[in-house]
């Protein structure tokens, strides 16, 4: 099943069992965003806008919930970031009429790892010295994600807004996130939506078509795409996760449904190996009452709102 674009051409593939009622979803999410802010004593929100579909959708949903005048989108490109991402993000800001600011994180990231020699110029060493130049793309990507988190939380103070999360359910379940990086937020309105559902909702709220069409990418290095890196397509991965997690199908039942055994095994490993990314770190139980163990209060309780 596919959602037809206005032109009649399918924008993306939507597995039938994943199709949601987007009207109800928008209603629930708008109330959720307003409730989270009100209960914390905030009226404004901040998010990192990459120009990808996840953060663009959250920008639209947040603007819909509280008005664009209360939303700050922070664009945080690195020197290798795709210029198309930047222009897509600017298009979202232009269409929504929300606040925006650009923080180039290149000096922060390169200040740590250094910058390799290029174009005949010498290498520039960072805080790690010569060793920093050898850092793997994974380390650099994680550091960039955590740098963006630090920039966002700083803007949370200056703009007076809570940081809105933009991670989706698919990447959260397989652990395709940087812990304390892109998964850091005050609340997340789309963390229970698979990528296919993000696309469906993005169409419903009017996210620009080129953002919905382009291949999803963490844009941590040039040419990187999620599906290229993971080795499977989102519609298939979303379906597998849906039947595995939401519908509790066993390994053998999934294979009998037609999923490749090797893929089922690999995804099961990814889900299990990333459990730590989805949970609050455990505290050693020593005293009579321990946060998260037997001291259990709602995050938002009388007195918890900023005054």
């Amino acid at each position: 099943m596919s959602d037809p674009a206005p032109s009649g051409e399918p924008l993306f593939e939507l597995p039938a069992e994943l199709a949601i009622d987007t009207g109800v979803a928008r209603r629930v999410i708008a109330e959720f965003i307003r409730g989270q802010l009100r209960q914390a004593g905030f009226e404004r929100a901040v998010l990192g806008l990459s120009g990808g579909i996840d953060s663009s959708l959250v920008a639209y949903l947040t603007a819909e919930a509280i008005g664009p005048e209360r939303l700050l989108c922070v664009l945080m490109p690195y020197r290798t970031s795709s210029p198309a991402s930047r222009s897509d993000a600017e298009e979202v800001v232009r269409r929504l009429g929300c606040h925006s600011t650009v923080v180039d994180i290149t000096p922060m990231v390169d200040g740590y790892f250094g910058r390799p020699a290029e174009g005949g110029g010498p290498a520039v060493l960072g805080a790690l010295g010569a060793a920093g130049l050898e850092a793997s793309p994974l380390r650099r990507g994680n550091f960039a994600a955590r740098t963006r988190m630090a920039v966002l939380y700083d803007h949370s103070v200056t703009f007076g807004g809570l940081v809105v999360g933009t991670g989706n359910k698919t990447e959260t379940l397989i652990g395709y996130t940087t812990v304390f990086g892109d998964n850091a937020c005050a609340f997340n309105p789309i963390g229970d939506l698979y990528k296919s559902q993000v696309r469906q909702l993005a169409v419903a709220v009017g996210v620009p078509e080129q953002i919905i069409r382009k291949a999803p990418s963490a844009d941590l290095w040039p040419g990187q795409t999620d599906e290229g890196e993971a080795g499977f397509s989102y519609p298939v991965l979303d379906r597998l996760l849906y039947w595995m997690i939401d519908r509790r199908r066993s390994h053998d039942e999934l294979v009998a449904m037609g999923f490749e055994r090797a893929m089922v095994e690999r995804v099961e490993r990814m889900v299990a190996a990333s459990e730590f990314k989805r949970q609050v770190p455990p505290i050693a139980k020593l005293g009579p009452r321990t946060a998260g163990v037997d001291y259990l209060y709602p995050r938002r309780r009388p007195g918890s709102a900023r005054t």
Partner: protein
Amino acid sequence: MQPTALRIALAQIAPRLGQLEANLARHLELVEAAREQGAGLVVFPELGLTGYLLQDLAADVALRLDDPRLGRLVAASRDLSVVASFVEESADHRLFIAAALLEDGRIVHVHRKCYLPTYGLFDERRFFAAGDAIRAVPSRLGVGVGLAVCEDFWHLAVPALLALDGAQLLVNVSSSPGRDLAATNEVGLGTAASWRTLMRTYAQLTTSFIVYCNRVGVDESISFWGGSEVIAPSGAPVFTAPLYDEGLYCVDVDLADVRRERIALPLLRDERPELVVRELERIIAERAGLAVDTTGEVGPEGVDLHAGLPPPGRSRR
């Protein structure tokens, strides 16, 4: 003869979590608004006075039945009936999720939630004690009233017992978290579709009015979907409130519909409580291993599930 026309006001509100005073003020305001609109019965949702996801806050907002704060709401029930819900602390300091029927400035009945969901997204049994009684009570409305709280209605016996005990108006107050947005759902929300099936079925099978009041708003991750309803004894919906919209919704019913339905469809007349209780006693004994289980599942070969009692039809080794 008492008039049978009744205006029911459904207070589909969004309680503030843990803010008893603010919620009480809202209740008092809405009782007066309902009175001005001519309502004879005002129904508030489960834990409307405290919010739902209390966890350890439950002890902080618990009320004894003689608490003066509750007294203010009780006093507001002059000349009309109010169903309100809160955390009740008993004399021996157990905490219950309670729903009370308040009439003419008195607490007429307190129902303590009997079934506490502790699975999936629910964790009620950790924080609350379960009630032990299901009773219908006479009401100034001229019909018996039965109260139930949310999950109580996911157990068939509850509406059946209330109707057998004399209720003609069954009130369920809920804090039902909405989930499952699959586009294939009848109303865009799986939870709403399930509840609607239950309430129409119960109304029809008990030939009673069902009044369902569910909250709206957000506690932490969960959103409550509203969709409060009144269902006629025929199973036909009289009124369905919008999903997610806060509001005081007034619904007019004719309580004489109960008599008409029960004459035409005498299901309650034909109920066999003595048959049910006999079969239940047998099942309880069998489940406890005190009687031979004639219908239960057969265990693995050679394993005796009921010590000392050979399953019939199989030779013991």
